[in-house]
């Protein structure tokens, strides 16, 4: 079978699952719903694996396969800033190249495991079918996003995943906090999408095409012929507009605020959408647009700085959170910051590599936390956990592996990808020692808060409510098996991208055709060269920092059990700021939300006082002035009218029955009248 030409089927399987479960899911047994949903994703995974395998058989330069289904939009000619008219034409087509290969394997592979996990986790919930229908719709949108061959297809997927995120965060819609969180996610994402759509429009008016490959070629030709230069303000604005979109979807400063609140959704949703796949869409989009970012060094610097600051900022909040899922949420924001740091220093492959390894270990950690929450009867507060390690051993072991991986233990996935990013931040021509320093600090903080989470949950004294103690139980097989598979992935995923002192990264070589550097003059000069020794030294530094974080966490939360007073004292005046997330939500309320509300209230006041006042005033004047004319009216005019009216009334009683007061009757008469006219126009003229 030629899987390469069948890639258009990959998004279609979950779409079919969504239709089936959405339409008849309520009437079929829960097992069938689960099998349909997970089976659809498994089929996608098989087709993805087949297609990627066949792609690998091709020569590296030929690894790009476009499948055009049909011409989707054709709206005639439109002028561009470059002068010649461009046809506004968009195809419904899919592109499989190394970058989208990695994305579809991550999305379908981890997506399948999470579907299986969900059949266990969501088993007791109402609206089981609704959950799986949304989840499949999400898979369809996400696969469209990463497989689409042009910016408009990507935009469809982009909006689709946003919608599914909204629906799934608000899955427990009877809880006000969940409804608020989903609205917040939607509105904040709208701000980002505004930027993205501006960026896409700018791309079209500049290059006259939406196709990634065509735009990439035009940029390359422009550089060769001298029409475009690195640092042109046009590229800067396109890159910044696209990056605004990325900050919304991928939760970067200043639009990260929705992601921690998104934890109101069910835990598998947090794992799939808000950790492993959807939030990495921004990283994917920036990596996909690498030809534009290469032309805009200033925009790259913005991306790197925003990424590094987000990593630091989110990690600082994660240090003191007490809700197990919120710690993981801030950790996700922080790790996404790493990815953008990598993109910003020009290490696109390193960013995508971290995207992949992060998908494994963060999905594992989220599903593990879901298993803990399941065991604890929906308790998410780590202050009410402790000493669980022997009660739920599989969950504990797999989460331990995940924690080791994210903390950067040598040999596990997080070590390879994080070190690659730190090394690139240090050594790349776009890099900076300060960015590297922030990255290393964040590595230490990551290690600290993740081990704090592990120790508070599984070690120390038990703070579990004594009613629940007897009921703590290990999760069913459908939940533990995905955990085990993901744990294996979190250990092994890093070995495809070994650092250069261990033989070089196969992952990077695979992605090279996508991230081919543009022939920009002067870009290759002035690169400092470091030996392998420096790179090993860097790795040693980050391992040492991670070890420091572990040691601190060990003495504070494992040797002695967690106590609130001690923690408050330790951070001193910073504690309330950290706990309350630096009060950014309050700041945004003050700056934007209350402004919008205030505008609404003042418009309402304007309406109720000025507009209504004017109406009432004119009415009053009319009433006053009408007294005089009322006499004349009452006796002379009315007399006449009454006479005529009485006359008509007596004569016209049968007609009155027609006026029923039902709008639909009037509409029927109107439509019949129109039909009569049409009939007359067609047949009545000769």
């Amino acid at each position, binding site marked *: 079978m030629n899987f390469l030409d069948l890639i258009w089927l990959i998004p279609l399987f979950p779409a079919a699952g969504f239709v089936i479960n959405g339409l008849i899911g309520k009437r079929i047994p829960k097992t069938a719903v689960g099998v349909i949903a997970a089976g659809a994703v498994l089929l996608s995974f098989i087709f993805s694996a087949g297609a990627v395998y066949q792609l690998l058989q091709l020569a590296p330069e030929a690894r790009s396969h476009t499948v055009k289904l049909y011409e989707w939009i*054709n*709206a*005639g000619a439109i002028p561009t800033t470059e002068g010649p008219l461009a046809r506004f034409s968009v195809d419904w087509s899919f592109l499989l190249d190394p970058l989208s290969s990695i994305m579809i394997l991550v999305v379908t592979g981890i997506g399948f495991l999470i579907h299986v996990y969900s059949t266990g986790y969501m088993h007791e919930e109402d609206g089981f079918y609704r959950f799986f229908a949304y989840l499949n719709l999400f898979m369809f949108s996400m696969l469209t996003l990463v497989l689409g061959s042009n910016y408009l297809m990507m935009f469809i997927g982009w909006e689709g995943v946003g919608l599914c995120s909204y629906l799934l965060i608000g899955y427990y819609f009877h809880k006000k906090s969940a409804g608020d969180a989903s609205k917040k996610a939607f509105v904040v994402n709208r701000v980002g999408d505004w930027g993205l759509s501006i960026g896409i429009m700018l791309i079209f008016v500049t290059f006259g095409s939406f196709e990634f490959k065509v735009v990439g070629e035009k940029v390359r030709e422009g550089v060769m012929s001298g029409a475009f230069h690195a640092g042109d303000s046009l590229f800067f604005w396109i890159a910044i507009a696209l990056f605004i979109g990325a900050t919304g979807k991928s939760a970067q400063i200043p639009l990260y605020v929705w992601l921690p609140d998104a934890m109101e959704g069910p835990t598998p949703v947090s794992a799939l959408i808000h950790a492993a796949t959807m939030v990495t869409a921004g990283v994917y989009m920036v990596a996909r647009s690498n030809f534009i970012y290469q032309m805009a060094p200033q925009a790259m610097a913005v991306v790197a700085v925003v990424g590094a600051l987000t990593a630091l900022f989110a990690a600082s909040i994660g240090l003191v959170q007490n809700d197990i899922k919120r710690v993981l949420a801030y950790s996700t924001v922080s790790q996404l910051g790493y990815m953008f740091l990598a993109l910003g220093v020009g290490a696109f492959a390193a960013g995508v590599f971290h995207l992949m390894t992060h998908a494994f270990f963060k999905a594992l950690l989220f599903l593990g936390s879901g298993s803990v929450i399941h065991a604890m009867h929906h308790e998410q507060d780590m202050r009410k956990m402790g000493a669980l390690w022997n009660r739920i051993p599989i969950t504990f072991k797999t989460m331990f592996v995940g924690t080791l991986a994210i903390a950067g233990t040598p040999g596990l996935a997080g070590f390879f990808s994080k070190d690659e990013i730190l090394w690139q931040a240090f050594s790349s021509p776009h890099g900076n020692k300060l960015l590297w320093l922030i990255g290393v600090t964040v590595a230490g903080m990551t290690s600290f808060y993740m081990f704090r989470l592990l120790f508070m949950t599984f070690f120390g004294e038990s703070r579990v409510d004594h009613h629940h103690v007897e009921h703590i139980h290990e999760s069913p097989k459908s939940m533990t098996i995905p955990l085990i598979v993901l744990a294996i992935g979190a250990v092994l995923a890093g070995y495809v991208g070994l650092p250069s002192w261990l033989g070089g990264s196969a992952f990077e070589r695979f992605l090279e055709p996508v991230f081919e550097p543009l022939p920009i003059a002067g870009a290759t000069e002035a690169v400092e060269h470091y030996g392998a020794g420096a790179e090993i030294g860097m790795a040693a530094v980050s391992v040492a920092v991670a070890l420091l974080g572990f040691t601190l966490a060990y003495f504070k939360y494992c040797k002695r059990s967690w106590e609130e007073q001690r923690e408050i004292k330790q951070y001193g005046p910073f504690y309330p700021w950290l706990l309350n997330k630096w009060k950014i939500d309050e700041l945004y309320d003050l700056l934007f939300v209350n402004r919008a509300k205030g505008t609404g209230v003042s418009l309402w006041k304007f309406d109720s006082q000025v507009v209504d006042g004017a109406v009432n005033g004119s009415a009053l004047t009319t009433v006053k002035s009408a007294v005089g004319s009322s006499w004349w009216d009452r006796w002379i005019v009315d007399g006449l009218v009454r006479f005529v009216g009485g006359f008509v009334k007596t004569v016209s009683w049968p007609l009155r029955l027609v006026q029923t*007061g*039902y*709008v*639909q009757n009037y*509409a029927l008469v109107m439509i019949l009248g129109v039909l009569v006219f049409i009939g007359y126009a067609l047949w009545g003229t000769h």
Partner: protein
Amino acid sequence: MVTTFHYLLLSAALFTIGIIGVLTRRNIMVILMSIELMMNAVNINLIAFSDRLQQVTGQVFAIFVITVAAAEAAVGLGIVIAMFKNKETMNINEIDLMKW
């Protein structure tokens, strides 16, 4: 091959469904939805002729119709909410204030 005729057929079918919905349903929400159907039938018509005549005007007009439809939906829903607050019903038969 999808020709203009097919588009017109689809549009006529949608429009008829919309009319029947408006005339026979009693729930205001469903009637509003039927009106949307009719508007979209019109849109398909506009786009079909825009395609046939190779002129963008029809598409621009369709976008205006969509905009108007959005405003119409907002106003319509506002009226429905106000009506529901006053009469606690969605049944159009119970709303006959226009009767003599």
